[in-house]
């Protein structure tokens, strides 16, 4: 499903599965939280998918990328909120985390760039370029390797929300 169609289906079509909230300071106290949270949550969300084990493995990989990105946010005050939705073959992750305005602008540019053609070529370039920002590799990687549709919302003045639609069920079969 293309971004525009998804927008039409919109939020009402997505059923909420899970809502996870955590103090950002608690989350960033240990890097292992990214791995642990992504595995734990992916297992729960995937339990009724066609192949729960592989779906969970794939979802955990994608979610971990997002969590690691939020872990690197320059802001520590506030909450990390991770909400999961599902519509048919698509898992939607809405990940909100505190983020300073300069960093928000940086992410906006990256997400805007995803809408242009040449994602694959850009991604291949970024893989080998150690000067390219990690965030760019993460977002392009999600778009190219997971067929993700990625949107950005500014939820509050000092927070940012990534809305990421992942058609994982289709990727697995």
């Amino acid at each position, binding site marked *: 499903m293309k971004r525009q169609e998804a927008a039409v289906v919109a939020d009402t079509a997505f059923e909420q599965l899970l809502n996870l909230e955590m103090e950002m300071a608690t989350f960033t106290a240990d890097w292992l939280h990214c791995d642990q949270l992504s595995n734990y949550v992916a297992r729960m969300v995937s339990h009724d998918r066609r*192949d729960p084990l*592989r779906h969970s*493995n794939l979802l955990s990989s994608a979610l971990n*990328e997002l969590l690691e990105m939020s872990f690197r946010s320059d802001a520590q005050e506030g909450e990390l909120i991770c909400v999961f939705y599902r519509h048919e073959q698509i898992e939607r992750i809405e990940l909100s985390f505190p983020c300073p305005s300069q960093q928000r602008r940086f992410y906006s540019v990256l997400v805007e760039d995803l809408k242009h053609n040449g994602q694959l070529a850009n991604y291949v370039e970024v*893989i080998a370029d150690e000067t390219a920002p990690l965030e760019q590799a993460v977002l392009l*990687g999600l778009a*190219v390797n997971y067929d993700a549709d990625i949107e950005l919302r500014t939820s509050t003045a000092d927070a940012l929300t990534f809305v990421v639609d992942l058609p994982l069920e289709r*990727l697995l079969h």
Partner: protein
Amino acid sequence: MTPNSSSPVFTTQFDTGNQEFVATGVLRPRSITDIADDLLLLRDKIETVQGVFYVNLKRVTHMNSTAFRALARVLVDASRSRPELRIVVLTSSVVAWATQLFRHLSELSPNISMEIYDSAFYPGQTFVENKSFIPILRTQTKMTWRHEREILPRHGLRSGMAIADICCGIGDFAMLVRKEFDPARIVALDHSMASLDYARSVAEDFRVRDIEYTYGDASQMLFEGDQFDFVTCRHSLQIFNRPELLLRELYRICKPGGRVYITNEKNSHCLGEPRADSIQWTYNEVAKLFRHFDMDVEMGPKGSRLLLDTGFEDVRIESFMVTNLDGDPQEFADVIEAWEDVYAGEMSVRRGDSPEFVARFRQGFRDHIFAALHPRGYAGWPIWAASGQKPL
């Protein structure tokens, strides 16, 4: 990366004989410095080899972008500084993110390629994936289940357990276990999408929603360790060319104190009366035929040794004979006929056997069917069931 008590485990090593860098576990470092030693090992070892350098990532269950980019850069740099070297990254078809990620490396360097390893791992699978074989597999399970439902409790199966049926095929055994032993959780894994599709469709027809079917490589499973109280692997170790690898995986996913249950045949001991000599000759040849394709259908009695060698304790082994007298003799005959089609009709032909050999080979199966359907006849198919406990 140095593992501590709560870190996911990640290890790397180099196999000089195979020119293979092997990584295992979860690779999610915070920064490149966390995996500096592993990258250094990779860089150093690439310098020591000629020809083909293998990067085996089949057992890496997770990898983040930080690690992927660092690994990619080492490989790309090596492919540029040593253009005569071919670098092959081995991944598993089960781990979807890995095949998605590593396909890009060939775009960075023509000397790097990705190979999906496990498609070549199962020598016996191609012979039984044909959909026409499904009714026979169902009949076989029905015939063995008459015995196994009595045998399984002697090997420790109780209700309320977490069970994994590895190499579950069309899933009928998992369905029977679910009904008879009411597990707390049951997972069924196989490497055949076609078999799993069938298993899921049967489950759907019967409104069974609590069996987790999963596509997987039994030698490199995605399950975390110490998960299951009872792990079954029936009639499958005998058709793998490296059964010890599978046993290690069965051991790994079994909880300490849990048990692994295996069944295997000894085909040369299939028997029948009348026409015993012809039957015996053919089944001796069956054993040799499978050996030609790197499978050991004589494995049954070796179950005890295999389990002990893997580290299991309290090993129990027993045999049972499926016979034409267990139920409808025609079912037994149908199974033998299917064996004839596959063994004589496909495998023997693929080995390049002469028409005369194939004709004699077929005759033994025909005689086994004759014995099974004879009013005073007897036909048998012996199976060994063994189990061992993972030490506490």
